[in-house]
């Protein structure tokens, strides 16, 4: 380790420094200058600072997009793909920050927006490392920020309760992950993923290996809300302030899927076992296949019974975690990232609509959307685009996400071994159409309730939502635009 290395580290981490600097700038501005301003003013100001700072970070990322680096034994690993994923994370964070301007759920907006930025910094570190220690620390930075964000609505008793449940399940997940990591370290003597990969195949049949795999997958199963580790999701989605829920559903998902995919395909390629039909053998492929099956079935069936829009979204997120796991099984990073990013864009968009509608009507049920077409045309169209994308209707991004993921899983193994999983996923998508159409039915078919006026978000949020809907449409109609960055 020489000084030159540190200098390079500073240079390569310039986007992350910028993000951390943004955190401090937001806190400073809010505490120093804006004490006497209105909450609305302060939230817009904080979101503006965050947007500026993140735009600068994005600029740095685009400038250095062709970078490849591997420093300090895998602690910092940069590739063009990781740079693009970070770009996506920054974009999602900007939208989330602007959602804070919809509805006053706290007086301490500056801190809330700063926490969004802090979580983003954690996610950025998370996607640029191949070191178990770094994965753990970054993951905890993300998680702790999100727990606090979830609890931020002091007026609602549900917010604290949701945060506590999220925290308890998340803490358990961290412990599982860590225990799994300790076994991986014990088996291979290393916390560096490629080194682990080289040595772990010696222990392919070792029960300890299997325990380690199950523990690690369980830990990340919590983060991505896969059944049976999903219990926190409906409560957190329902109780959290809308921007926090949006970020849990978007940024956190992208980063977690990226890391889980990397951990399994870079760190544990030799101990996959098999999840093929009638050819099960222990390994992470089998474990992930079981999680995917359970998530798709349970998520979709439970979603059918929901009347709260946010809980519906939570169960649909569980189902989508199942679909995305197919891309991990297929071992296709572009498919996984395309799925995760487009899904995140869609989710943050839906929560944007939810935030605006709840703020204006105070109604959190699906029925609260009744007659939205008359009350806001923009929100209706945007919501329809997002929901249809989740349902997987082409030419929206959700369709190609599913297509890539399913095709990746279908290609794997000889004689169509994973077809049972693909068939199940297609069947599950059919079920999901039912509840997605229930949402759209409220928007377009249900009569406009009496005495309900127009619904409109702030102009920045409206523009952002329109852009997100457009992005879903464009990346769906021309998927090559996105996928070529993710290879």
């Amino acid at each position: 380790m020489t000084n030159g290395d540190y200098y390079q580290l500073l240079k390569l981490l310039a986007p992350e420094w910028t993000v951390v600097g943004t955190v401090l700038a937001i806190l400073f501005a809010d505490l120093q200058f804006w004490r006497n301003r209105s909450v609305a003013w302060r939230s817009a100001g904080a979101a503006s600072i965050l947007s500026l700072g993140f735009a600068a970070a994005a600029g740095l990322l685009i400038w250095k997009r062709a970078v490849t680096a591997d420093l300090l034994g895998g602690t910092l690993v940069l590739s063009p793909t990781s740079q693009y994923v970070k770009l996506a994370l920054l974009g999602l964070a900007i939208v989330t920050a602007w959602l804070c301007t919809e509805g006053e759920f706290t007086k301490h907006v500056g801190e809330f927006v700063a926490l969004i930025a802090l979580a983003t910094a954690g996610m950025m570190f998370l996607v640029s490392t191949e070191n178990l220690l770094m994965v753990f620390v970054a993951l905890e930075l993300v998680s702790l920020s999100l727990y606090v964000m979830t609890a931020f609505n002091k007026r609602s008793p549900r917010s604290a309760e949701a945060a506590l449940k999220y925290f308890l399940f998340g803490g358990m997940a961290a412990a599982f992950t860590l225990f799994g990591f300790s076994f991986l370290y014990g088996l291979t003597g290393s916390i560096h993923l490629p080194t682990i990969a080289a040595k772990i195949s010696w222990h392919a049949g070792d029960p300890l290996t299997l325990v380690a795999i199950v523990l690690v997958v369980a830990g990340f199963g919590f983060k991505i809300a896969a059944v049976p580790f999903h219990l926190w999701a409906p409560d957190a989605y329902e109780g959290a302030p809308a921007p926090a829920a949006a970020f849990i559903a978007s940024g956190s998902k992208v980063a977690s899927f990226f890391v889980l995919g990397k951990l399994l395909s870079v760190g544990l390629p030799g101990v996959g076992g098999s999840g093929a039909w009638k050819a099960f053998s222990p390994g992470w492929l089998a474990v992930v296949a079981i999680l995917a099956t359970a998530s798709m079935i349970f998520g979709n069936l439970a979603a059918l019974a929901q009347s709260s829009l946010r809980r519906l979204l939570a169960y649909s997120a569980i189902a989508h975690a199942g679909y995305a796991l197919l891309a991990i099984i297929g071992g296709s990073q572009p498919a996984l990232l395309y799925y995760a990013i487009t899904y995140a864009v869609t989710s943050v968009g839906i929560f944007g609509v939810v935030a605006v509608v709840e703020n204006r009507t105070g109604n959190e049920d699906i029925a609260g959307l009744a007659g939205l077409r008359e009350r806001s045309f923009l929100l209706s169209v945007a919501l329809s685009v997002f929901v249809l994308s989740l349902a997987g209707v082409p030419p929206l991004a959700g369709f190609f996400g599913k297509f890539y993921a399913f095709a990746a899983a279908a290609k794997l193994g000889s004689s169509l071994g994973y077809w049972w999983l693909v068939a199940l996923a297609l069947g599950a998508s059919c079920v999901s159409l039912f509840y997605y159409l229930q949402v759209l039915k409220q928007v377009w078919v249900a009569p406009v309730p009496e005495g309900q006026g127009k619904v409109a978000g702030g102009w920045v949020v409206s523009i952002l939502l329109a852009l997100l809907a457009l992005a879903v449409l464009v990346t769906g109609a021309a998927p090559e635009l996105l996928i070529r960055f993710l290879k």
Partner: protein
Amino acid sequence: MLAWTIYISFAAAAAMFLLKPDSRQGARVLALVAALAGLAVGLAGALQHAGGGLVTIQKYPWVPTVGAEYYLAADGISLTLVILTGLAAVVGILFSWNVELRTREFFAFYLALIGGVYGVFLSFDLLLLFVFYEIAIVPKYFLIAIWGSTRREYAAMKLALYSFIGSAMVLAGLVAAYVVSGAQTFNLVELAKYPFPASFQNWAFPLVFVGFAILAGLWPFHTWAPTGHSAAPTAASMLLAGVVMKLGAYGCLRVAMTLFPEGLATWRNAIAALAVVGIVYGALVSLTQRDFKFVIGYSSVSHMGFVLLGLMTLSTIGLSGAVLQMFSHGVIAGLLFGVVGRMVYDREHTRDLDELQGRRLSRTMPFAAVTFVVAGLASMGLPGFSGFVAELKVLIGAWQTFPKLAVIAGVGIVLGVAYTLRAVQKAFFSGDQEDVPGAVHGGHAHGESAITLPEKIGAVVLIATTVLIGLYPKLLLDWIVPSFASPLFDGLRKGGLL
């Protein structure tokens, strides 16, 4: 040039929202102009492509990562169905001139549906075809759920779920074909050349075929059709029966049969039997219905049975008969639904045949009665109408391969005469108008309930078409027959099936 049919429809659908929310007349005119433009482009393009061979319209790389192309092309079969779509679109708009509720949105969904349908008929890339096929599902749901009648939300959801399940089956087969061939292409012509292993074809064929055939009303997967048709607003049922059911049959012919000829050979008898069951079952059920639209809905199931039977004959005469029957049924079913949904239901506010029985509508609305009688004759398959040529060709083709089934299908035709006459009799020619006090259904005083000009034009256009094709089927057959010589059907020929 033909590609503009798609673009015009979608552009007009989007342009609807530039109009003022309450501009009903503007929306109608815009929709009509777009549909007419689509029909004109379709006709002009079709005339250019005389000969029926496979002609590429547009071909660009679309998703190079998976080898999908934006590949639009046309052969005689596509041309026939594009013209049918254009006709149905124009007449459907004429028949929905009286839509007052959210007119703008109605026509936007309507044109989006039309655009998707054009897209399916012109796509020769499997993935692109699938995308258009799915685009057509969502507008159908809204058209029925918002503007429909009896149990509209149930019917709309049933239709959407059936369609989605069908398309999921198709997608499964499509991904399987893509993965197994390993050819990194979705080009239909290329994929059709690939010799898929027989064991694979044996399960992939029924998957894809049934997936499409759900939409074509294959018995026993037809139950969405009568409920969907009867709940839908007039224009939507005209499109559903006239065009959307053809999407399914087209997919069966274009995708399932060309890609998996060996699977087809295995399943051929079973599917032919189901088709004949559909013919007879549809006709029998139609005979017992009280709801006028259910009569037509089940008759559609019966007539689509002829299409599927024609496909299974695998002879040029049977196949061309099937395609001709798609066209013919599209026109006739459109006409029947137009009369029942628009002319009768919108004025009498009932479709119950027993209620209509006393009203002797032939007096109050002679035009509707005449139109329905003519359409009924065409639907029965009387010589001189398009249905006759089409069903005759199918039966001749079936006689050569499945003589027993052909006889049973012949019984279906006789039953067709029975249910059509029953409906005509009950709806239009029974009861005595003089006996019924005007106050009971005085809502249709002659002045306001007279058949309007758009309806008359629409009806005349459709009647003229069915007569024209009935008298001179060569017009379409010159396109359809040479299509089967294209390389797409090489697989069938190689197996000695065509």
